[in-house]
């Protein structure tokens, strides 16, 4: 049986589940949030040996010992649970809940550690933007010059920089307004007002010819070019989506050397699947930016006709039916 660790409203999960149904595979899905709002019951027993059961109206009661393989899609986003306490200002309470939330989910990871994983949870948890950049540099992928500093004197503000989160971006709601932490270009006027600041990540701004979004699955790359450079809104980061006039997105063929290096990078990082962001600079170079192991892949699958959800479902089927001889 396949176990899908996901989150509500992840439509990539929905489409893969539709394919698994068509392929006749037995699977269950656990959404992180459902364990905390009571929609999925959980029961963990330590003695005489650890046992973990889950139960809900869709699949009944299941022992997780019966699981053959796990798809670690998106699991463990505290933000969705936190929304239920919108307006709560008691930081200690929220921190306590977050710790208990993460520790509860760790029980699942630990219990399932010997199963086959599509993206092993330990590899995903240990992943960081910086270690990924170091790894990509080691295998010869070009990266933008990157600095983490707490002082503006370490930067040359006559040069163009971008800033982004050192770990993961987030969304902050203030009243009616929503702030997305995406990549932002540094404004030298604003920086002039600073002396020091909370340690922040800066990267040289690469002049783009176009951007690439590449979905990787088990040694195969599915690249897409995004023509985001000419739109002021998407010029720095295509995720500042222009819904009125969306960027053009087309299938793309990577140079063999870059294709091989990406596969090597994913192998070195221990990731079976992930979405990579790369910039093709006007200088002709390919600049690796980052990899997101649980990034949505419909945005690559649909415009390029890659049928990635079927490919993921087939991979899971293979893992589920594979037996040791």
């Amino acid at each position, binding site marked *: 049986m396949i176990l899908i660790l996901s989150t509500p409203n992840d439509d990539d999960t929905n489409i893969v589940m539709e394919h698994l149904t068509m392929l006749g595979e037995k699977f269950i899905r656990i*959404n992180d949030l459902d364990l905390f709002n009571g929609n999925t019951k959980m029961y963990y027993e330590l003695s005489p040996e650890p046992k973990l059961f889950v139960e809900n109206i869709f699949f009944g009661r299941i022992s997780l010992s019966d699981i053959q393989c796990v798809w670690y899609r998106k699991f463990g986003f505290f933000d969705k649970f936190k929304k239920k306490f919108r307006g709560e200002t008691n930081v200690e309470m929220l921190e306590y809940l977050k710790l208990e939330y993460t520790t509860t989910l760790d029980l699942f990871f630990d219990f399932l550690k010997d199963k086959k994983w599509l993206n092993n949870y330990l590899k995903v948890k240990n992943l960081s933007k910086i270690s990924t950049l170091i790894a990509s540099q080691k295998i010869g992928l070009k990266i933008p010059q990157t600095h983490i500093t707490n002082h503006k004197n370490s930067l040359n503000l006559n040069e163009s920089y971008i800033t982004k989160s050192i770990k993961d971006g987030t969304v902050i709601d203030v009243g009616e307004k*929503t702030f997305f*932490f995406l990549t932002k270009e540094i404004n030298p006027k604003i920086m002039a007002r600073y002396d020091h600041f909370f340690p*922040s990540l800066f990267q040289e701004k690469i002049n783009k010819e176009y951007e690439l979004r590449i979905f990787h699955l088990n040694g195969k790359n599915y690249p897409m070019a995004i023509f985001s450079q000419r739109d002021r809104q998407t010029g720095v980061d295509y995720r500042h*989506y222009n819904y009125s006039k969306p960027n053009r997105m087309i299938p793309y063929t990577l140079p063999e050397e870059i294709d091989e290096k990406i596969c090597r990078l994913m192998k070195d990082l221990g990731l079976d699947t992930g979405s990579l962001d790369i910039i093709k600079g006007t200088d002709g170079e390919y600049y690796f930016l980052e990899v997101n192991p649980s990034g949505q892949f419909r945005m690559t699958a649909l415009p390029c006709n890659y049928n990635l959800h079927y490919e993921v479902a087939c991979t899971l089927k293979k893992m589920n039916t594979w037996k040791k001889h």
Partner: protein
Amino acid sequence: MYLKKNEYMEKTLIKEIGYEKKKELLPVIFSHTEPMDIKKIKRDRPYRMVDTTIHQSEIYCLRIYKDGINISTE
């Protein structure tokens, strides 16, 4: 003075939360991040409801996307 929509939208997060005087205690991105016009996204989003039994999720799984971009999980 009448403000154009874009000028109004340019109020950064640090101004919005009133931490301009404590800006040194926050990452630089706080003074560069502006609000996203999600009302427009909500207005424009096409969606369909899917059979929740297949997808084993009690929350309606909205397929909310436009031109291949999933708006709901961004």
